[in-house]
């Protein structure tokens, strides 16, 4: 049986109520993602607090107004972390936007990390989707539907996230002469391979001897120095198939840092929008009207904005 609603969630639902345009405000780190919010929309704040961390289950139940930083600080006390991207925002914002951390190869995808979601519907009802265990195929996958939906289908109050152990050692290395694709191929499981067209940064994680062995394996692809962390990233975000990074010059990205093996490109220029097939757009429209017939949740925002 599902855990009972906590009082904060019930209060949140009451505040959201069942009519009028409404949005949840977190830390505004990605406030304009997916389009400008309808200025008539009322804004509310999601409840905060970590409800239960169970290291032996690799799960944490957290209210969505909690900052990712606070969550990760708490999990680190038990040597764990989540896949969520920490850019100073909230858990709810990180899940609603759904963008992955720069070290996604090591951290995993946000969409795979949400085990259970509890949200307030357009009708002001509290809905639970998914379940508290790390494995679950009971019914349809509402948690994945909420990841990246920009709060247009429901307003999240709490989530149960899968946690993962923090690696024994994490080390960043940088090269000015490496072929980033050869470097990626030489490694078994890097956490990040970043490339700006000339320099390559790599994060290696694991047991110390494995990190050292992987670092030696990189010698075939260039010369390397230890560095403190990833470079600063340009603000725009492109999504390409990983192999397309080999011919990134055909895209007008401006200054870029590309995530090799992933396909995300952090760029100084905005990616031109790509047309979506009419059938897919219609399917998205049906989903939106099924969950929010009056269009009151986060009006003005479109998950298919890219």
């Amino acid at each position: 049986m599902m855990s009972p609603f906590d009082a904060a969630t019930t209060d949140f639902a009451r505040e959201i109520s069942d009519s009028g345009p409404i949005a949840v405000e977190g830390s505004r780190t990605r406030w304009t993602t997916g389009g400008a919010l309808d200025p008539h929309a009322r804004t509310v704040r999601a409840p905060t607090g970590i409800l239960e961390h169970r290291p032996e289950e690799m799960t944490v139940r957290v209210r969505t107004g909690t900052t990712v930083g606070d969550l990760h600080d708490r999990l680190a006390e038990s040597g764990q972390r989540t896949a969520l991207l920490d850019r100073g925002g909230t858990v709810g914002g990180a899940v609603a936007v759904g963008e992955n951390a720069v070290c996604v190869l090591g951290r995993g995808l946000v969409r795979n990390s949400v085990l259970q979601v509890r949200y307030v519907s357009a009708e002001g009802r509290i809905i639970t989707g998914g379940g508290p265990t790390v494995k679950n195929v009971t019914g349809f996958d509402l948690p994945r539907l909420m990841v990246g939906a920009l709060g247009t289908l429901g307003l999240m109050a709490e989530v149960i996230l899968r946690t993962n152990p923090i690696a024994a050692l994490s080390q960043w290395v940088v090269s000015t002469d490496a072929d980033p694709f050869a470097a990626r191929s030489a490694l078994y499981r890097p956490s990040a391979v970043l490339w700006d067209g000339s320099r390559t940064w790599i994060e290696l994680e694991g047991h110390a001897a494995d990190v050292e062995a992987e670092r030696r394996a990189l010698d075939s692809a260039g010369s390397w120095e230890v560095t403190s962390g990833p470079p600063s990233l340009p603000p725009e975000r492109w999504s390409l198939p990983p192999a397309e990074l080999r011919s990134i010059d055909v895209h007008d990205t401006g200054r870029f840092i590309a995530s090799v093996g992933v396909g995300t490109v952090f760029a100084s220029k905005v990616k031109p929008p790509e047309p979506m097939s009419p059938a897919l757009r219609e399917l998205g429209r049906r989903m939106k009207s099924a969950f929010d017939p009056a269009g009151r949740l986060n009006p003005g925002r479109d998950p298919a904005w890219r």
Partner: protein
Amino acid sequence: MFKSSRVRRRLGGRPADPLLQDLRAALSPQRVRADEAERALFAHDASIFAGGVCGPVCFPTTTAEVQAIMRIAARHGRGVVPRGAGTGLAGGAIPLGAPVVVALTKMDRILEVDVDNRVAWVEPGVVNLDLTKQLLPLGYHFAPDPSSQQVCTIGGNVATNSGGPHCLAYGVTSHHVLAMEVVLASGDVVVLGGVDAEPSGLDLRGAFVGGEGTLGIATRIAVRLTPNPRSVRTLLLAFDSTRAAADTVGAVIAAGIVPAAMEVMDQRITVAVEAFVNAGYPVDAAAVLLAEVDGLEAGTTIEADRIAGIGRAHGATSIRVAATEAERALLWKGRKTAFGAVAQIAPSYYLHDTVVPRSALADVLEAVYEIAARHELIVVNVFHAGDGNLHPLLLFDDREPGIIERVHAAGAEIMQASLAAGGVLSGEHGIGVEKQQYMALMFSSDDLDHQDRLRRSFDPTCRSNPGKVIPASHSCADIQALRQVPAGVWG
């Protein structure tokens, strides 16, 4: 009269049926079957549930043919049930209401292996293990590895969001499906997801995986290629109680180790498996734990040592490390053929599938033994302990009067015990027809209403695999009505 009779009693010795005629015109007469034997066969799947009523069985070979089938079925007001190898255990492929059955086994081509993007495009009828065999020489594999992987299809894996022993570290099917071409019940074709890093729009790919065929039919699937590990260590630990084995599993995770797999078998199944494969499983142990770590050399050595240490601290009576690849393969053969080995104990079995928090494993296992004893049933346990995924097998002889009722009563109690411990109804088999009536134990009416909204967005008329997953009171299809052949319609 003679002439008219000949016209009416052609193909399959049945009266000419407009649905059948349209399907045969769209595919070919050979790939639309409607004889009694075929329909009886496709009325069932691998589950223990009574068969349904099967309409024509189609074997499409292209997306366009699947599209044509969907449109013809819609025109005739009939449901459509997609089917892979029929290995599902929750009755998801049982046809209800004489639907058109779409057998995807002839769409079995691996279309493209793209190592640069680490993705393979496959048709839904590709057999899970066949894909991995193709990929292994290239240095990759397809990570989900259900016990049925020698016969089950990728399309079926997508439908049920299949797991398997190695999903502990690698994740279930949804983690490994990047994109799909899907034919909706309307006949429209959409591509969900993408092979790029963060596809735009709602994650309809994620919503579709695990939809048990109720959301449409995937006709091309892009799966992620997982690199083969550089190093693997496989350990077999024996214990004098199932509690000690279960507690070891929890302690390993709590120690910050995420093994590739952690599987537990109790004594009765271990004895049966050992008689079957002669892998050297300790038949005197109350339970065995098969643990595997993979990755790089140093890490696997360190983690294998730590698991052995944790096992010893929990009273392991013996610990064996597979010395060769052949020894490792034999140990895994034992685990993966366990369901076949139970035939030595009883002719039939009902395999359950629930998940509980790891910390509750030992208590729920004890409850499972108690429930079986009270219903005078034999139970064996072989399960994915690492992620708390229980698989109690209730063994029986279905010729014994009244035993099926006892098996179902015990099964219901096992589900209730799992939910009471903070668990969920299904870890990897799905809901199908098996657990529909129990969905309300886990979800509120509002929760189920939202699941139904997801379903109706894909299939507003509820014709794709009707009568599954959502309880009848929450969906457009009434399951009891579906068990009947529609009035005036040839089944």
